[in-house]
């Protein structure tokens, strides 16, 4: 019989050689995914100036005395206005200037001054509306939407007040007059 101790040594050496031939492990990876969202948002810049003073509205002398004088266009900036999503539109809602005295006016007089309000630089066409109050100031509001802006937009909006007219070119009743413009920005209506 062969020496049993010698036989056992040969077998174990073969096993050891097999293990030494094994390769190193491969690279391993794990991921950390970070998910977030940005909500739809529109912001209008603070109006500059925040109010418009037209001063004296009526002609003070000459043939047109007492009638509405020619009033230059007025400009208000809404800087850094934006929407961070697409398909938005502006709406401009204007209220005619009305005298604080609410007494019904006599024929040939007016307590209202109409005008056109236009907000530009958002989309085409501009959001524009013209008030159509009557001499007594009835129906002073008018609103209109502008075109749809099809992409996120950041811009300085310009509100222009123009085309000041008196219904029937009547004599303006005395007193202080006040009107307003409201600009709204948001999703375009279907």
């Amino acid at each position: 019989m062969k020496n049993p101790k010698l036989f056992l040594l040969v077998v174990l050496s073969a096993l050891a050689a097999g293990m030494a031939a094994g390769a190193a492990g491969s690279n391993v990876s794990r991921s950390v995914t970070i998910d977030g969202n940005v909500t739809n948002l529109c912001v209008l810049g603070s109006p500059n100036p925040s109010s418009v003073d037209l001063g004296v509205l009526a002609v003070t002398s000459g043939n047109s005395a007492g009638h509405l004088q020619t009033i230059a266009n007025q400009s208000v900036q809404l800087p850094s206005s934006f929407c961070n999503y697409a398909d938005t539109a502006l709406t401009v809602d204007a209220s005619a200037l009305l005298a604080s005295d609410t007494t019904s006016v006599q024929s040939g007089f007016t307590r209202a001054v109409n005008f056109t309000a236009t907000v530009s630089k958002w989309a085409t066409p501009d959001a524009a509306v013209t008030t159509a109050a009557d001499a007594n100031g009835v129906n002073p509001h008018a609103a209109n939407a502008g075109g749809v802006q099809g992409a996120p937009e950041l811009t300085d909006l310009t509100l222009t007040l123009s085309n000041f007219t008196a219904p029937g070119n009547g004599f303006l009743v005395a007193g202080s007059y006040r009107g307003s413009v409201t600009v709204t920005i948001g999703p375009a209506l279907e």
Partner: protein
Amino acid sequence: MNRLATGAIALLAVAVSNMASAAGSVMGSVGIDGTVADRCVFTSTNVVLNIGEMINTSGPSGSIGLLDPSRVNSQTAVLSGLCNGTSATMSVRAFPMLNTSFAATPPSGFSKRVDFTATAQVQTNSGVVSVSNDTVSAAASVPQTVGVFANDIDVSFSNAAAVNNALLIAGSYEGSVVVTLSPST
């Protein structure tokens, strides 16, 4: 007569002494050799962080619509793994958060990308090993040696910023950090 008897006794004596050696203990040694391959293993799964709203929706007018960096910078994740070799390394690769629904070029004043730096950190017997990668770099970080370790790997975020610090376009955003363990260089 006597000589024959003597020879027979002598042979017997020899035979007895041989058997006595065979019955005693004999020592020998057996060598056993083996190897363990260098390996690294992660013992945790992938992580998903949901950070919610990313922009300021209130506050100073100049900040509304801009990224709130703390929404990203405050995030942390924990992975865990081990390596059994002294030359094992760890590297990290960071991918920016991109708007997943807005495919077009951002209009002027807007961005659809948030960059950040990701750092993976692990405590080893040699001390803390930290490796970082920013999302602007085209490649992963240089691997750092971690050696033999079995521990948590802390992932943290910093320097979050929208491209040009612009307004972020609305939608869902996703980015990622990949941490890699390599058993040997």
